[in-house]
């Protein structure tokens, strides 16, 4: 087996609704400076950061080659940088491959996204649809989520008050978590009275449009141990692409999530994912997705979500103690943010949300209409029993 890969440090800017006072390069610099301070590293091909993996998107930035304007922040002036133009969890997937291949030992992962700059929900994600069949009917990720929510709520019987509780819980959890998330608590009545966005999704059922940057230092085992006392090992990675046209899928079946989970768990040598994790962080862009993804992971028995939610299944399985994506993460950085939250738990840095003795966690990212593409990461700390 190739060598282990560890997360050595995590940094994040405040996640805000409109980060007008910083350009995307400035947001990235805040993250970089924190990571360098935490690790004492420099950009250095011999014993420092040897390569950078950025995460951003040309259409969000309205910049061809959105990583081009930040070569300095990525340490890539006469150095190596590559951009993952996909959901942020994929940067950790790629960093794992890059380090395990033996090509480099130490990698900077740094993602940025300013959703406020474009019409994130309705313009940017509209552009992800094909120009012949699905764009002309006005599809965007939000409309696709509406269709998925219709189907799933009908199938599961989840009630409006349960969705409201998911939102209230997410925002309360965010207040206890040490990452800077600028999100206010709400009460269930506000959620239930919030305007309809894409029936049955109400505006407070949806993740808030968010600006911010987030990054990590990732290193091969021997380097990771030298950089920090308690690296978090990326022991399993897996992802899966589902079909593009919604009519070609059963959008409540979690096909891609189950495949991604199975692959990550196979690599992490986990047989029973439903019992394997001390903390779970899922990319819940909409309230209905949290129980849906929990079914996909196996935390919630299939078609039992209504009872499972009432029996505090989310708290029992320590799902999204950071608040999750519902507490606000930029669209393409959801999975990377979830991995950061798991990493902080495993490092013992989760503040008031800390789970004592958390040893193994799952982080999840999702992209595409109604969850076309899922990534699952298994993170562990020393002493996780393996």
């Amino acid at each position, binding site marked *: 087996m190739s060598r282990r890969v560890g997360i050595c440090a995590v940094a994040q800017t405040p996640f805000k609704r409109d980060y007008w006072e910083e350009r995307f390069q400035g947001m990235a610099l805040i993250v970089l400076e924190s990571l360098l301070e935490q690790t004492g590293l420099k950009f250095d091909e011999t014993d420092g950061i040897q390569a950078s993996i950025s995460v951003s998107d*040309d259409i969000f930035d309205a910049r061809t*080659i959105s990583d081009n304007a930040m070569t300095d922040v990525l340490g*890539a*002036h006469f150095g190596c940088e590559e951009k993952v133009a996909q959901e942020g969890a994929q940067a950790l997937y790629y960093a794992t491959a890059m380090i395990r291949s033996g090509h480099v030992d130490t990698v900077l992962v740094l993602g940025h996204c300013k959703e406020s700059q474009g019409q994130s929900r309705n313009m940017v994600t509209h552009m992800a649809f094909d120009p012949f069949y699905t764009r002309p009917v006005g599809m965007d990720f939000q409309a696709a989520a509406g269709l998925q929510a219709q189907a799933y709520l009908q199938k599961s019987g989840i009630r409006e008050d349960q969705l409201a509780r998911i939102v209230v819980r997410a925002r309360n959890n965010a207040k206890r978590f040490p990452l800077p998330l600028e999100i206010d608590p709400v009460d269930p009545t506000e959620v239930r009275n919030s305007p309809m966005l894409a029936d049955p999704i109400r505006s407070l059922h949806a993740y808030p449009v968010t600006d911010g940057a987030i990054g990590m230092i990732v290193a091969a085992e021997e380097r990771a141990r030298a950089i920090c006392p308690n690296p978090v090992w990326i022991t399993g990675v897996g992802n899966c*692409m589902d079909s593009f046209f919604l009519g070609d899928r059963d959008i409540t079946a979690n096909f891609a999530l189950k495949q991604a989970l199975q692959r990550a768990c196979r690599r992490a040598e986990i047989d029973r994912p439903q019992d394997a994790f001390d903390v779970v962080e899922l990319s819940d862009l909409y309230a209905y997705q949290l129980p849906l993804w929990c079914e996909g992971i196996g935390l919630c028995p299939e078609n039992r979500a209504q009872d499972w939610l009432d029996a505090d299944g989310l708290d029992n399985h320590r799902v999204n103690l950071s608040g999750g994506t519902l507490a606000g993460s930029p669209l393409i950085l959801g999975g990377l943010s979830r991995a950061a939250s798991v990493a902080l738990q495993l490092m013992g840095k989760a503040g008031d949300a800390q789970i004592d003795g958390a040893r193994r966690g799952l982080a999840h990212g999702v992209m595409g209409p109604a969850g076309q593409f899922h990534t699952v990461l298994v993170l562990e700390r020393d002493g996780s029993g393996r």
Partner: protein
Amino acid sequence: MKKNRNVGIVGIGQSVFSSHREEVNQPEMIHEAVVEALEMAGITMADVDCVVHGNMELFEMVHQPDLWHTIGTGAWGKETLRITTGGTTGATLVAAADHLVASGLHDIVLAIGFEKLQEGHTTGGITNMADPLWGRQLQTGALTGMTAAAIIDEFGAERARKAAMTYRILMDKHAMRNEKAHRRLGLEFDQADELAVNSPALVGELRMIHMCSQSDGACAMIFASEEKAKQLCAQPAWIRDHITVHREEMFCIFGNAPVLSTHRYAAQKLFARNGITDPLSQIDVFEMYDPSSWWGMDWLREFLMLEGDAHLRMVENHDIAIEGTFPVNPSGGVIASNPIGATAMVRVAEAALQIMGKAGAHQVPKPVRQAMASGFGGTMWTVLFLLTKDIPALDERR
């Protein structure tokens, strides 16, 4: 640093490159390349573990197009990765596929680069990369006359212009042997003087005839672990090493020009860690990302670390022709075909075809044991690959 395991290229597919692929949409065009690559490798999609995808989104204005393209890439149910780095994207995709297989995560990876430039505005798209406050007013996309001016300054106008046209016509003669190439003009050397005057001027001494095309096209490559590659292919092209070197957006922000080029810097490092002391004799063929005749000519000097007018003489003496002592771009290069997100991958793919002996009518006549391929993009970014016929040793590099 020790590579975990070797990676071989076992399949290559290219769509037909053209200015207008109106008869196919994006996934259909990609599908052409994927089918050809699978056929060469003798496998089906069932054998592929992971699909790597890349292009430049603002050319076609499709957000995360791998989602839609799933119907043409065959990625349904597969693991995927999407990587983009501008013009270097295609070469970065090869680097990513190499990492994915070498890491042990996957045994067989399919990588796809594509662009359908007809569906957008190429120079408009490229210009959009510059800072809206500090750089965009000065941006002319990939069109620049600076290198032509520098070569003319150094070697005189007559010799420089003539050499640039010689380079151009040699590349067209190569493209004439490559049925996939977009621009196959059938140029003859006796047209050089007329073209140098009558081809429309773009910027300074850069004329339309010197400049690369805007193409529609896709390239697909299949990568396999050493064990699988040996099973699938009598002669894989092995990835010996690669290096990525970016540089700052503002050309002179870290000091005055001239500065060390990323091409020369990348070549120096790659050669040093692979024991290449005499590239002209140790490398048998070079597929270079040459966006224009002027850049192509100038960059020979950088990549091969030549001094004085050696690069001009290589062109003037036709050393870079298919039959020459140091063949460059037997495929016709980027001047002939340029679907940007695929272009840098096509360089590596064509270098691999030369090693595999499968380049058909543009196969160089001498034995090819080691090939080099370059990608170019961003603000003078370089990705440089070394491929070999023999299985590389996995010992420590550097």
